């Protein structure tokens, strides 16, 4: 177990270091999420109760598409430089590659959300603790499912098309849970639903990653 976690830490550190060096993904995610919220701000009629409710949904749309942007690039280095071969050959458990990628995607999402949530509060309405909790829970699900699907898409020639087609349908429960938690009187069951989604999809992704990266 210690060696497994050590492999995850080594691989996640590598992903974070690569992003720190190249700055390819996180700045794009930041610009996208803030731009999307600005566009939504001008697209919605202001000062109505309906617009506040709609804005809650738009926050989740913005987060989901920002995540998609990051996920599209999650396996870029491995794909373009054939590095997935080297990682698959290494004697570590292959699910460690998925878990490390999931950790790095969560980190990227946290940075994007550190800007997105204040921007949302500025343009729309204050963000309460429940929404923050829902966002944090959804990050786990997005990263877990997204990292697996990103690896699947990376092996395809039509990867840019394939990833959204695979990811968005599977992300619908995240939107349901996230919006529900943001607007419901009793958000507990929606947070529980997000937690359940995270757990189920993390286990499925963890167990199936080996089959995705080997022929």
């Amino acid at each position: 177990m210690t060696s497994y976690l050590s492999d995850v830490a080594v691989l996640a550190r590598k992903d974070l270091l690569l992003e720190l060096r190249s700055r390819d993904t996180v700045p794009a995610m930041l610009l996208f999420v803030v731009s999307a919220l600005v566009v939504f701000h001008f697209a919605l009629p202001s000062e109505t109760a309906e617009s506040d409710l709609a804005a809650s949904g738009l926050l989740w749309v913005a987060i989901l598409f920002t995540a998609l942007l990051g996920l599209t690039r999650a396996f870029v280095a491995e794909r373009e430089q054939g590095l997935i071969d080297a990682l698959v050959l290494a004697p570590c458990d292959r699910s460690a590659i998925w878990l490390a990628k999931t950790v790095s995607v969560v980190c990227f999402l946290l940075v994007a959300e550190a800007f997105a949530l204040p921007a949302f509060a500025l343009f729309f309405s204050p963000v309460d603790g429940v929404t923050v909790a829902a966002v944090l829970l959804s990050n786990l699900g997005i990263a877990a499912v997204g990292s697996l699907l990103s690896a699947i898409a990376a092996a395809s020639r039509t990867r840019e098309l394939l990833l959204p087609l695979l990811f968005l349908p599977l992300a619908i429960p995240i939107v349901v849970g996230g919006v529900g938690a943001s607007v419901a009187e009793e958000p507990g069951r929606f947070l529980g639903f997000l937690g359940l989604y995270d757990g189920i999809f993390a286990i499925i992704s963890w167990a199936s990653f080996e089959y995705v990266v080997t022929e």
Partner: protein
Amino acid sequence: MISARDLSKRFGEKEVLRDVDVEVARGGFLLVTGRNGSGKSTLLRLFAGLLAPSDGELAVEVERHAVGYVGHEPLVYRELTSVENLELYGRLYRVPERRERIGMLLERYGLWDARHERVSTYSRGMQQRLALCRALLHDPELLLLDEPFAGLDREGATLLDGELGELVATRTFVVASHQPERLERFATAGLALA
């Protein structure tokens, strides 16, 4: 160590390898030759476990951690330095006395002075030297080398010649090359793919 019977590999409709029979004994050196597209790289990828055979039988009696593989790509992260790349692989392979081993390899392959520079700034030859360092880092029992001399200058090629000469007695090799004349003196068996 490696035994293949009627080994075939297809990608969709295209048959890349057909009914290959080959045996490589422990300590042997198999030299694989053939024209472009004859399936040399595919054969090495099959031996490495990166591909599954379409037909036939393949047995490679060596653990994954004891395989060193050099492919067409150097399989190193271009935004990391050579030390960072080798540290990454050294940790994943649990190489004992990792730092000393990395330092020794970088020095031997003439990359010591450039060890803190990003690989993206390296020439093709330097990247190939680093690929060899990566493949040798964990002191593998089986070395699968696909065009190992590609991109190497005369000094690099001489270095690799020396390395092969040192290792050939104690390791098992499968080498695909367009320059068989460089390797014939090491080879214990040959396989010409059509």
